[in-house]
């Protein structure tokens, strides 16, 4: 099991001022697995992802990805190792067309962090374009490919960001509430899409408050509360866990 852990968050601590955002977090994500992280608001879920992509340096502990310890890696290096992330508030290129939005990440994964070919014609990048179009198709935005991304509605921005991550074919995909603000219809589509990706063997960590999504996708679930992992296990185990019920799901579910 240790051998095929793609992501290993080892004993990570993070304080913001006096606030303990993460304490003693230890998390393993196995190859091909879809690992869901749930927990109340402010539990530290996004912070955990921030630590994984190098946005925040942990005060203590390490993140190990694919055997490499990500201590001094910058965000772009981590991405180049094969980690892509969908943010909680969509991070897209608002002034560019949808197609350009998706082509840019494709260049990053094809050409590396820096490669200078100033005279290559964009028009000759037919294969990248085709792939970008296909990815837009997958998330259902093909019809809008020439519009400016900034004018999309919020749900559409999220789907665009997903497409931007998927085109990179990352080894590990980190999703911070990918279906928040999406209509039920689109949520279902997104879930289907994520399922197909899973079949391709992509490892995913997903933060989600929508329990439909969580239970239909997750192989394992970890529950984070006040910066600690309070439970971890198969979906059925989590569902039945009274502590989780109390801290997170509330009486109704």
């Amino acid at each position, binding site marked *: 099991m240790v051998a095929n852990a793609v992501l290993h968050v080892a004993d990570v601590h993070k304080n913001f001022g006096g606030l303990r955002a993460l304490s003693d977090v230890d998390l393993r994500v196995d190859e091909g697995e879809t690992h869901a992280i749930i927990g109340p608001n402010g539990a530290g879920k996004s912070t955990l992802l921030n630590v994984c992509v190098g946005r925040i340096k942990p005060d203590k502990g390490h993140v190990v990805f694919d055997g490499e310890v990500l201590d001094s890696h910058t965000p*772009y290096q981590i991405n180049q190792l094969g980690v892509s992330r969908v943010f909680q508030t969509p*991070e897209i*290129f608002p002034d560019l067309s949808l197609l350009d939005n998706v082509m840019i990440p494709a*260049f990053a994964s094809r050409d590396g962090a820096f490669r200078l070919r*100033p005279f*290559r014609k964009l028009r000759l990048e037919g294969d990248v374009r085709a792939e970008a179009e296909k990815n837009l198709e997958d998330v259902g935005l093909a019809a809008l490919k020439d519009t400016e991304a900034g004018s999309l509605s919020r749900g559409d921005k999220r789907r665009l960001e997903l497409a*931007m991550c998927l085109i990179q074919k990352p080894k590990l995909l980190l999703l911070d509430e990918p279906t928040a603000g999406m209509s039920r219809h689109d949520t279902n589509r997104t879930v289907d899409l994520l399922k197909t990706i899973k079949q391709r063997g992509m490892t995913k960590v997903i933060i989600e408050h929508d329990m439909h999504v969580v239970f239909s996708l997750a192989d394992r679930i970890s529950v984070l509360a006040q910066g600690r992992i309070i439970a971890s296990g198969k979906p059925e185990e989590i569902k039945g866990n009274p502590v989780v019920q109390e801290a997170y799901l509330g009486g109704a579910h």
Partner: protein
Amino acid sequence: MTKLLDREPVALVVFSAVILLMPLWLTPLGANYPDLLQKFAIFAIFAMGFNILFGLTGYLSFGHAAFLGVGSYAAVWSFKLFTMNVLPAIAFGILFSGVFAFLIGYVSLRRSGIYFSILTLAFAQMCYNLAYSVLTPITNGETGLQLTLQDPRIIDRMFGPAGAGLPSTNFFGLPMSGYPGFYFCAVMLIICFFISRRIFKSPLGLTLLGIKSNQNRMNYTGFNTRPYTQTAFVISGMFAGLAGSLLAVTDPLAGAERMQWTASGEVVLMTILGGAGTLIGPMLGAWLIKYFENIFSAFNDATLEQTFSFLPEPLANAAVAISGLFVGEGWHLTLGVLFMLIVIFLPGGIMEGWRRLVRWIGGGGGGKAKTESAAVAQPAE
């Protein structure tokens, strides 16, 4: 027609034709004399280069004139030390400004936004102040670096003794003043246009646009943005260096004012005026400003009286009095008013005006977009 111009060879041919025929179509505007034509070409290069940085990455450098100055000084030194041939001068100009841009960019690009602007401004102002005074042995200070009869000119001396007067800059014997000088600059402009067009339409260009749009996303998308911005900075510095050395080629004198913040500000204004981020907008902006500077400032009461002489006496007097405020020593006023009008009514600069015109004509059903300026303005998109 627009589709057609998207094709590279077509765009280049049209662009070249427009540039090379400038002496012809600028005649009615009174701007068809070599010096102004040269300035048109040179400042178009300067603005085009600036646009590669500002238009693509959004980094607003307020010290670009430093590279213009460095290019000029390098070129004049090449004339003084080696040869009056312009090729080495240009090479030195580009090289030195490239090195300068690399160093200044390396430091300044650690910051973004206004902090970056002020860093570049500070570097340029230091260059200017030092060039004006302390560095006089290298720059000849206020007067500007000039050729003298005592210059060594090693390479030229190997081929023959110095003449009585100052030699002129030449391209393998062809003197680079007057129209030949313009055509030389024009060819450089066409090459720069080609390079700039290629960059705009390359993955590099798209990447730079991504940096402008959301640098954060670029980092999490796996791009190391610094080398990209650094590249854009150096390229645009080299364009500026080329422009600077061409200034020296057409007129071998390099003054320190070329590095002052006002000169840096001018290229910013040119670019915004024409339309930042468009291929040829900055060039149009450069033309407009240079045109006003050179033509409007030259009007005086006598010329105005001539112009309005067809009017009855009192009317003519009034016309002279009013228009006199805007020309001659008032040309700055005209420029200021123009800046305001354009930015208020055409956000996005002259190119925006062009787009509106096209849309209006297209929408009006006429479809006759073949105005004279059509050829000038079109290749950008």
